[in-house]
């Protein structure tokens, strides 16, 4: 098992104890979904503390409870595969309002006329950044970096003079991370962007592909009139591309990233044909040379 910081250990312990608030519990569950060792640590705490249940008195539930369980189980397939939602719109014209809502929802200066739909997207953005913060802390301890950044993607040496203080040669440039997920759902993709090269990597976490369909990644920015395709992702566990290099840093950092379900091979016309299935925003990762937290 890898070495976890005291913060992570305490988080696991307090999850098992039950004293975390709803947001923190969601964070722990997200971490568990992407990190087997962390899951094992939580379960070890649950197992240790679970001995306390021996002292809790038994109470018989009413017989109706079993009837309901049996009915529910009868209707549910065991180990049911996760089913992606159907695109909510016919594959003709992208839902402009919905896409606009996504962009508006994550723009904090534009909070006055939020529809219910937009508030929904806002909550996605908020939850996403909370979860991303945890993942960043994990990245800080080097969990994802080895996998996410193959040598070929490390920042290249720059010949131009940089005005800001130059980092030590061994320190990686700033890394940005976005967790792309459904509202309240587990992370589907983890997007990582190198601050210097703007190369990005998408790691598939939990996103079962539909037959004959492809996942496509989009950049949504209030500086751009419509979503820009970043290409098809999810065909393999990792997708790495330099395509973000054509966007300026501020756009890349402030954008919302969304995944749609498109026809096999991706959108034929450069426009999304479904509502966003998974979304997230980038947050700056802690440099790996700094303490985890």
């Amino acid at each position, binding site marked *: 098992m890898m070495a976890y910081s005291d913060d992570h250990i305490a988080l696991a312990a307090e999850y098992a*104890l039950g*004293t975390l608030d*709803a947001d923190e519990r969601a964070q722990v569950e997200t971490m568990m979904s992407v990190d087997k060792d962390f899951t094992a640590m939580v379960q070890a705490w*649950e*197992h240790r503390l679970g001995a306390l249940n021996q002292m809790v008195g038994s109470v018989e539930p009413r017989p109706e409870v079993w009837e309901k369980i049996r009915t529910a*189980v009868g209707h549910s397939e065991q180990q049911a595969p996760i089913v992606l939602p159907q695109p909510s719109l016919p594959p003709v014209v992208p839902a402009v309002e919905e896409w606009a809502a996504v962009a508006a929802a994550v723009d904090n200066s534009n909070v006055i006329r939020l529809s219910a739909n937009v508030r929904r997207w806002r909550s996605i953005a908020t939850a996403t950044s909370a979860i991303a913060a945890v993942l960043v802390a994990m990245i800080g301890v080097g969990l994802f970096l080895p996998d996410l950044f193959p040598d070929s993607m490390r920042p290249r040496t720059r010949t131009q003079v940089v005005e800001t203080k130059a980092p030590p040669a061994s320190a990686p440039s700033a890394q940005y991370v976005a967790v792309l997920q459904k509202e309240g759902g587990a992370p589907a993709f983890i997007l990582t962007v190198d601050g210097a090269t703007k190369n990005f990597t998408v790691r598939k976490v939990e996103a079962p592909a539909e037959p004959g369909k492809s996942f496509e990644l989009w950049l949504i920015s209030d500086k751009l009139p419509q979503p820009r395709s970043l290409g098809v992702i999810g065909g393999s566990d990792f997708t790495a591309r330099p395509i973000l290099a054509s966007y300026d840093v501020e756009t890349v950092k402030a954008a919302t990233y969304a995944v749609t379900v498109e026809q096999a091979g991706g959108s034929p016309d450069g426009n999304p044909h479904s509502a966003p299935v998974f979304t997230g925003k980038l947050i700056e990762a802690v440099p790996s040379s700094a303490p985890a937290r």
Partner: protein
Amino acid sequence: MLTPAELVWLIAAVAKGDEAAFERLYAATRAKLFGVVLRILRRQDLAEEVIQEAYVKIWKSAGQFNPGLSSPITWMASIARNRAIDVVRRRGETSIEEEPSAMEVAADTPDPLARREMTEELKRLLECVGRLEPDRQKLVLLAYYNGWSREQLAAKFEAPVNTVKTWLRRSMMDVRECLGL
């Protein structure tokens, strides 16, 4: 209660879709799990909902149970208890105010078992919890048994929430060191 080995066997059968095994598993464990969640939720209707969801999850994820990592009853109780905690956290922190008597009813921890009835694991844990200061012992046990939030614990102990947060964290780290985790 069936033996742990029998429960492991039942869970393995449930993982294969054996409904009769599932019914036996339910019969053997329902009262313990219901006791655990009722203590946290303190409402029959909510506890029934949680126990239903918990057993449906047990049915679906029986294949993921690893007898090397946990005992069957602890694994099942954790599923039910986690669900109960999620429900009370999402309902907000108003339940104590809603039920003025709840504080007193829930304030005591369950009756101690006779020492000879305790498993080695429970003895070991209680030894470690017992090394904490008396107030911290109570804090940890109230948190576990009643599913109280930091805010509720802060009200009970008349301390700021941040202080309670620090106490909880230190207590868990002390317990960890004592257990050798």
